[in-house]
């Protein structure tokens, strides 16, 4: 298994039986060079400054080595085997009905209680009129507009709101931040843009879910959220159902800007294809997520990660302003041969800044689950506080859990607390449940859900219920 193409073939053979069609036209041949970037930019009709920005990123990327510090093991990625532009699939190329979709995928949808028309959407079935979401989407957009909230694709925003994009794009995650962020900056396909005006409390949870039909954003997604002074927004990303996705490599970038007094709550549920139990296939997810919190601002990341063969993700907060607050709540579940190296960075720059990190790692099968976190207190961050809690739960004895907490404090007034535990679902707990009539699978999912409770309560209500169900489905077969 050395080349991207071979890996791709493996995924397709196993997971997606019967619904992947041959390569479409209007897809660039694999490989990356300046012409490819010019082509992408031209396709999107981008202004010159953005093309230059992309090319600059590309130059930086060329000089950067592939990062190898993570506790991850995968065959080398060949970036010349990836195609960097693919036009949206035409209706004819998609599966024509659910009958053509992997029954395993459908079974999961059923268990999660996903309505039929949504199943079609998630599985990428060709449906022209997208049911009620059109009307839902319309009323939704009208309501947002009334509040002055902008919620659109980033391509659209580049044309419609250049004054908002230009100063903020790359302001949190610069082009040359890291290898994958540089690659994303050079070739990003699309993503979401959100702007909340001063003092506005966004009237609803913003969810990519509403945009799912237009959100065929591909593997290099880019999201930018700007919350102006004193505003509030809760943004939900992803979906509890596994997404049909033919891309193997994902390198997304998410930037959050919380201006003074603003609050951003960003919740993610990620359930991409994790590969089979022998580690065949699955998505490689290399994501850079970071937010800047100005004076009195608050950024809260909540993530539930159960998918992907490889997860490399550290949603971080730069606490730039005084009294800024950063939070990170995470549940990462790995099973089969999944590998997750995930955590956060809390960079305290302002005075009286506080951060909270709650990380729950659950490992099953032969998987590897790593928490990696950095808490940095800068010299001028007087009275900074951090609380970190990392708990690992092991199911079985063939999986691994690792914790790499880094603490750099350069101010003596800092208060930093770190707690870590590792536990196993005990036979006694299981037996108690079974003795009370609860079958072992339900029992394990209940115990694991209990373990994750502190994180789930941070999720928006509906998401929390779904996340619980998702764990249940993901844990199937993890016992015994």
């Amino acid at each position, binding site marked *: 298994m050395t080349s991207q193409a071979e890996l791709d073939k493996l995924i397709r053979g196993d997971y997606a039986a019967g619904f992947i069609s041959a390569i479409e036209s209007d897809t660039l041949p694999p490989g990356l060079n300046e012409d490819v970037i010019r082509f992408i930019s031209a396709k999107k009709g981008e202004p010159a400054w953005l093309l230059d920005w992309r090319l600059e990123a590309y130059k930086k990327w060329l000089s950067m080595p592939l990062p190898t510090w993570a506790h991850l093991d995968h065959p080398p990625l060949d970036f010349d085997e990836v195609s960097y532009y693919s036009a949206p699939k035409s209706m004819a190329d998609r599966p024509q009905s659910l009958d053509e979709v992997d029954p395993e995928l459908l079974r999961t949808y059923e268990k999660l209680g996903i309505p039929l028309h949504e199943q079609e959407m998630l599985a990428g079935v060709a449906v022209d009129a997208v049911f009620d979401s059109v009307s839902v989407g319309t009323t939704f957009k009208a309501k947002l507009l009334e509040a002055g909230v902008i919620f659109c694709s980033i391509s659209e925003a580049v044309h419609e709101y250049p004054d908002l994009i230009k100063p903020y794009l790359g302001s949190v995650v610069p082009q040359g931040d890291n290898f994958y962020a540089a690659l994303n900056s050079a070739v990003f396909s699309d993503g979401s843009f959100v702007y909340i005006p001063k003092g506005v409390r966004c009237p609803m949870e913003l969810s990519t879910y509403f945009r799912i039909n237009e959100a065929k954003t591909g593997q290099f997604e880019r999201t930018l959220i700007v919350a102006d002074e004193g505003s509030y927004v809760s943004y939900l990303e992803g979906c509890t159902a596994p997404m049909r996705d033919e891309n193997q490599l994902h390198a997304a970038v998410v930037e959050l800007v919380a201006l003074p007094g603003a609050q951003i709550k960003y919740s993610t549920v990620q359930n991409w294809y994790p590969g089979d139990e022998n580690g065949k296939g699955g998505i490689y997810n290399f994501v850079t997520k970071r937010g800047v919190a100005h004076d009195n601002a608050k950024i809260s990341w909540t993530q539930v990660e159960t998918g992907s063969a490889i997860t490399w993700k550290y949603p971080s907060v730069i606490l730039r302003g005084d009294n800024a607050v950063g939070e990170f709540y995470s549940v990462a579940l790995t099973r089969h041969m999944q590998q997750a190296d995930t955590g956060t960075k809390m960079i305290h720059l302002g005075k009286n800044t506080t951060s909270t990190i709650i990380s729950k790692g659950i490992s099953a099968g032969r998987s590897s689950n790593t928490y990696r976190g950095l808490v940095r207190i800068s010299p001028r961050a007087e009275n900074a506080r951090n609380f970190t809690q990392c708990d690992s739960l092991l199911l079985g004895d063939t999986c691994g859990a690792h914790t790499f907490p880094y603490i750099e404090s350069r101010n003596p007034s800092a208060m930093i607390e770190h707690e870590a535990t590792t536990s196993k679902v*005990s*036979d*006694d*707990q299981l*037996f*108690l*449940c*079974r*003795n*009370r*009539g*609860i*079958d*072992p699978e*339900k029992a394990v999912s*209940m*115990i694991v*859900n*209990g*373990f*994750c*409770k*502190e994180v789930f309560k941070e999720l928006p209500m509906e998401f929390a219920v779904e996340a619980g169900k998702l764990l249940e489905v993901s844990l199937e077969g993890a016992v015994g």
Partner: protein
Amino acid sequence: MLEIKDLHASVAGQDILKGLNLSVKAGEVHAIMGPNGSGKSTLTNVLSGRDGYQITGGQALLDGHDVSELDPEQRAHAGMFLAFQYPVEIPGVSNLEFLKASLEATRKAQGKEPWDAVTLLKKARETCKQVDLDPQFLKRGVNEGFSGGEKKRNEIMQMLLLEPRLALLDETDSGLDIDALQVVARGVNSLRSPDRAIVLVTHYQRLLDYIVPDHVHVLAGGRILKSGGKELALELEQKGYGWLTDQEDAPA
């Protein structure tokens, strides 16, 4: 209801039960007493199907069915309940959530009407009061941070809600003060009925002052050495176990 015939069982390769016979009929309360290491807890664990407890000979029949053919949860569905000597904690899973899962699965398997959320909460609160537990305990994690006595009362609370036909209580009296003992006894007594049976495993006669058994058995060396009425317990209290086990060649 429960028919145990020449039961042999081992734990970690060590033979603990060595030909145990016991017959429990509906409506009866049996007390099983015996010295430490005689196999009392092994008996309840074998009956409820705990991993690691192997039946090596004989059989235990519940309503005529060999229990070894049933998974632990199936035994629960068949009406068997074990009140644990050391109830384990399940952090983050609320008592109420746990009860809901337990009752849903059990009532479904028994073909009973499911309880809606309101009914469940109402019954659970009432039952809490019955065993002198603050209903606030329903919101706390299962046994999480409970005192020893609270854990035992929590077990009895679950038992009363599940209404088992055969309740096995493994040293439920251990670690209880006299007030808590009375509360637990009251709970157990309220379960007594002509169609149910209760098997109490205990070290001490004290519990039997409050839950008066129909039959008392002395278990030693993996076998029932002597059976009698409630007066046997009093005799044991006075004489200890020595006079019985001394008759054995190899006491446990």
